[in-house]
């Protein structure tokens, strides 16, 4: 190969290098741009439709403008409370088992099973909750929606709890055991408090994950144009309202769907960012 040819191929290689590296940057920007666009568009469309009555009023009958989604906001909150009170204890205990008691093999198997539950489509979870709760009860209810969301929330809580419990230094455990504490006492008094901030993070991420879920609620919590009393009546929820209003042919309903989507996205993103900040502060404090 002549010197000239070498220079030429290396120039070509350098060009390809710059070109392809630039292309990967473009890919990353497209993905980030999509988020920016969604945020911007929602603020633009939803901001103008958001009003006080959105938070305080019930939906109005078709044809009448105005009204709000107060019942859907309360409904979503009730569903989340239910999901949390079922999903968090189970998820936390399962995470505790994996981190503190399980042998490496069974820990691997349980982690794997958790990931599989995480991959079950949300609509299938909805069907499961339907056969499990709605069929025996004979009607749609807030309770069945809460069960569906609880199942969706468990995998996130398990993996989060496990990860943060495992991050607690074993010297802490050994110190407690050396002082004569039983293993369960060590877990309750030493390990869990040390990981409390991380566990809180896992819970917030779990709630954020299910707050926007629509599919599991379609035939469990159903929908409701009025207030839902107690836990056994069908209830409205923000995501289902967005879906119903978005596919309806009324201009006023579309505006409300945008407003609801803005509120929902705001809550979900705030929970996500909050959880991440919490972890970062926790790491900074520990080091």
């Amino acid at each position: 190969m002549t010197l000239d040819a070498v220079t030429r191929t290396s120039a070509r290689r350098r060009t390809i290098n710059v070109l392809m590296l630039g292309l990967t940057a473009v890919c990353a920007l497209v993905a980030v741009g999509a988020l920016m666009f969604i945020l911007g568009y929602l603020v633009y469309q939803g901001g103008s439709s958001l009003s006080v009555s959105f938070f305080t009023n019930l939906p109005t009958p078709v044809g009448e403008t105005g009204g709000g989604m107060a019942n859907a906001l309360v409904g979503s909150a009730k569903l989340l409370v239910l999901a949390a009170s079922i999903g968090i204890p189970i998820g936390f205990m399962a995470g505790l088992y994996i981190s503190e008691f399980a042998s490496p093999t069974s820990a691997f198997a349980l982690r794997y099973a958790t990931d599989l539950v995480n991959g079950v489509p949300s609509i299938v979870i909805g069907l499961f909750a339907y056969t499990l709760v709605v069929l025996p009860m004979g009607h749609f209810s807030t309770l069945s929606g809460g069960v569906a969301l609880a199942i969706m929330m468990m995998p996130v809580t398990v993996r989060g709890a496990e990860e943060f419990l495992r991050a607690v230094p074993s010297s802490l455990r050994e110190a407690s055991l050396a002082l004569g504490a039983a293993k369960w006492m060590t877990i309750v008094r030493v390990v869990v408090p040390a990981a409390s901030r991380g566990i809180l993070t896992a819970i917030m991420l779990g709630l954020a994950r299910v707050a926007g879920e629509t599919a599991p609620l379609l035939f469990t919590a159903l929908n409701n144009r009025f207030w839902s009393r107690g836990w056994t009546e069908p209830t409205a929820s923000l995501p289902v309202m967005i879906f119903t209003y978005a596919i309806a042919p009324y201009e006023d309903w579309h505006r409300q769907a945008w407003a609801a989507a803005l509120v929902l996205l705001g809550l979900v993103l705030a929970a996500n960012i909050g959880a991440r900040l919490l972890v970062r502060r926790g790491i900074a404090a520990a080091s």
Partner: protein
Amino acid sequence: MKKTADEVAHLVALLFGLTLALLTVLIGFELARSSSLARHRFGWSFLFTQTWDPVANQFGAASFVYGTLVTSAIALLVAVPLGVGAALFLAELAPRRISDALTLMIELLAAVPSVVYGLIGIAVVVPLMREYVQPTLQRIAGSLPLFSGPMFGIGYLTAGLVLAIMVVPFIVSVLREVLLAVPRDQREAALALGATRWESTWRVVLPYARLGVFGAVFLALGRAFGETMAVTMVIGNRPEIAASLFAPGYSMAAVIANEFTEATGDLYVQALIEIGLVLFLLTMVINAFARLLILVTTRRGVSA
């Protein structure tokens, strides 16, 4: 005394751990039990017949299976290059600070609720497809049956593209982890041999992590199969197989979401639950495979 208390604690925790592990089995069992009528009536032909006629009590899921496969294929065709590119940038090129910031934003993209994607899909993507993208595609490649026929904006192609944006974050965040687990000396060796940055990334790092790449792709496929709301809102909801990607169609998840509460008669409800069962088994197999691939690569990277 101390010992028994510990054993009790162990047992209680084990019980909760098992609950979760048994959940997948329980879901499969429940769905199979609640769809027995439809399963016995139609057998395997359920998957291969197209007739979906609630009035005549004739149910076949072929058009839904087709819709799910086609939209997911379109989604992966777009999302895999985009996701791999973005992950390479984040893991290999960008300075740590910028990489962390961009990763956070892409992970937030994964947190956007499906129904919000659907809303944006209806309001922005559908008109865009109808006015610009579909006419352009037809002008260029209208002779292919894939791009022929009337343009509604909704349909397989639109659903596939919305899905693509939804699965990109999954590909990126899994792949970034996988790429970061590739040992440093692999890169350094390539660079020392005179490779450019791109050559080291493309010929050394990516092949080293190839199992993880497949894992990320299969994980995204599992997501795309199960995605419900956004697809339901833009696919058009017509239970027929059409050759054109512009035609309205249906997917497995979408038909359950749309028709379940309106289904009258046991057989209708059970046919929908059977579609759920098929969807569950499909995503289960794909995810089981994907997770295994990812575990193997990240483990190997760490131990090497």
